[in-house]
């Protein structure tokens, strides 16, 4: 009997220890930054990269506002519910005030709400326009551009270069993000005299796109435009190319995830395709030189978009803390709102009205394998522009 009781006690201690230890580690002077990344589950492919980028940034900057930084990894397993739960715990039990990262928009929107209601600061990589639109809040910032920006900075320069490419066909993921891309595209086409000859919606769980592609080919468009993100975009493009669409149609992928995506497509498919991207490692800017240098030095790889997104959110938080000179939340938010710094895409500025980071978005063109200078040199940068909805049009009221 005694034995069993001892075992039970030991088990109870075993369960309780992690939190005790965690508290012991949390030294008084360190600023802890919670990082929401999915390391297991469906979104692990995204979370892993973001996690690495953020960790390296923390290692690089080491301190902010004169205090050491500590990276607190919160594995949400791709589940927004779990993300909310971990955030609540981090705020309540550990007093963490600063948060960053997300692996999908649902997580970002849910965590943003939680952080706002308990008075913290959160910067993330959500794709959803609501983040700096109708669901924006005082405590949350977003690094990647909105769908409006992505469409305007890719389609406009493209149409300028090919004024004769009038007929556009779209293949769109039928959900909120894909629809926002499509809506913006229609607006731009309408304004510039392009013609939208047809759209195919596909669902979040489609993997076979040949039907949509056959429909697209039948419409004989000048341009095939893919309005989606992630692995579905990869699949649509791969199948479109296999159906020979590159022969007489130009392909524009409005929202790509850059290097990762190019690697999983291979150079043959990427050649001649136009990609929109939030980041490209070949861009010459002081912030990018720093980032690529550190990543090459520590990981011996070229930074991808996801890795950079992790870095960027960390960097922005560090810059805001430094500017505020303290870790007081109101001061940091204030510093954030007028922040401007040399980021991975050049000079990046935060807009106070909707908490959007104003940064370049790129139009990239896949180059032939023979012309690639190294194994990661998949594209040429065609244009780098900023285009943002005026603050009163975003739907955000702060």
């Amino acid at each position, binding site marked *: 009997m005694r034995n069993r009781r001892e075992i039970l006690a030991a088990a109870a201690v075993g369960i309780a220890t992690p939190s005790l230890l965690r508290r012991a580690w949390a030294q008084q002077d360190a600023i802890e930054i919670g990082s929401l990344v999915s390391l297991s589950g*469906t979104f*692990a*492919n995204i979370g*892993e990269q973001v996690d690495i980028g953020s960790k390296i940034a923390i290692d690089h900057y080491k301190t902010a506002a004169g205090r050491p930084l500590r990276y607190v990894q919160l594995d949400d397993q791709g589940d927004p519910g779990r993300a909310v739960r971990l955030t609540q715990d981090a705020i309540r039990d550990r007093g963490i005030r600063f948060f960053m990262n997300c692996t999908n928009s649902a997580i970002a929107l849910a965590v943003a709400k939680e952080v706002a209601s308990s008075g913290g600061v959160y910067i993330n990589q959500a794709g959803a326009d609501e983040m700096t639109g109708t669901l924006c809040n005082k405590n949350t910032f977003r690094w990647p551009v909105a769908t409006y920006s992505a469409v305007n900075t890719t389609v406009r320069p493209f149409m300028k270069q090919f004024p004769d490419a009038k007929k556009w066909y779209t293949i769109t993921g*039928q959900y909120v993000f894909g629809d926002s891309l499509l809506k913006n595209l229609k607006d731009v086409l309408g304004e510039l005299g392009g013609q939208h000859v047809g759209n*195919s*919606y*596909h*669902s979040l*769980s*489609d*993997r*076979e*796109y*040949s*039907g*949509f592609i*056959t*429909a697209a*080919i*039948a419409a004989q468009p000048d341009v095939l435009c893919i309005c989606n993100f992630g*692995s579905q975009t*990869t*699949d649509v493009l*791969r*199948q479109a190319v*296999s*159906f*020979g669409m590159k*022969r007489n149609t130009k392909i524009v992928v409005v929202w790509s995830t850059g290097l*990762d995506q190019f*690697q*999983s*497509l*291979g150079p*043959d*498919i990427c050649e001649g395709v136009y990609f929109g991207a939030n980041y490209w490692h070949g861009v010459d800017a002081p912030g990018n030189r720093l980032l690529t240098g550190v990543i090459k030095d520590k990981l011996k790889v070229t930074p991808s978009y996801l890795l950079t997104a992790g870095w960027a959110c960390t960097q922005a938080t560090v810059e805001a803390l430094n500017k505020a000179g303290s870790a007081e939340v109101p001061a940091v938010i204030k510093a954030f709102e007028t922040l401007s710094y040399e980021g991975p895409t050049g000079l990046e500025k935060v807009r106070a009205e909707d908490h959007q980071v104003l940064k370049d978005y790129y139009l990239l063109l896949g180059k032939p394998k023979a012309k690639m200078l190294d194994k990661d040199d998949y594209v040429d940068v065609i244009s780098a522009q900023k285009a943002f909805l005026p603050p009163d049009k975003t739907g955000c009221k702060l």
Partner: protein
Amino acid sequence: MSAQVLIFGALNGVGIGMIYFILSVGLTMIFGLMQFVNFAHGAFYMVSAYAAFAIAQWTGSVLPALLISPLLAAAFALASERLLLQRTYSLPHEAQILITFALAILAQESVTMIFGTLGKNVPVPEIFSGVVIFGGFVYPSYRLFVVGIAVAVALAMWLAIERTRFGAMVRAAAENAEMMGLLGFDSRKVFMAAFAFGGALAGLAGALAAPLRGVEPLMGREALAIAFVVVILGGLGSFSGALLAALLIGITQSLMSMIWPGGAHLMIYGVMTMILAFRPTGLMGRS
């Protein structure tokens, strides 16, 4: 929408359907022979696709993988059967579902551990990298090659089922599982053969699909979902039913993507529900 577009859509649907057929036929065969519901079917498919990726990396072409990967998948299936699944034959179907489901998770996580979470590209073999054009209809040569293999597999299987002793048993077992014992077959060997063959078929589908879709750890899950829809629609255990259902789904999916793409999945699952509820033997099964 012109008639020509619809015809192209239907033709393309036949292509999709044939790919779905190879994917599903192993599942329906295992069920027909042994009344065994194999949730690990998608895992065989995925493991083989990853093997194809590795072989393509190593040799520079995915072609040798079309032979090697199915063998590896068969070995994997056989090993699973001997080490794990045979213990469930005496248990209810539910236990088999759960064990194979767990096996699928193990396979998925192991592959993630070895190859990472990011999707990988498997280049289309050089000789099939172009497109074929007939009339205004453009079709990738590689897909045509895949459809060709699928047709060959279907024919070979049809011959095997109609003309061989093993085929007689498959037919007998699909009618009545106890017949197998009465006909004097050693069920132990039959089950091993069924898993090896079913695994090889799933593996062939995986290796063929790798250049079409790339490889990623979750691909087994989707493949399983498609295979189940096909198998249930065709009637669990029915070979010709699987062929018919695969073609039907392929054509529906292809045409629906022109008419009402959002509804394609809803419709497919709706039909599946109705079939299960009102005609559980599927399209071709006898009730």
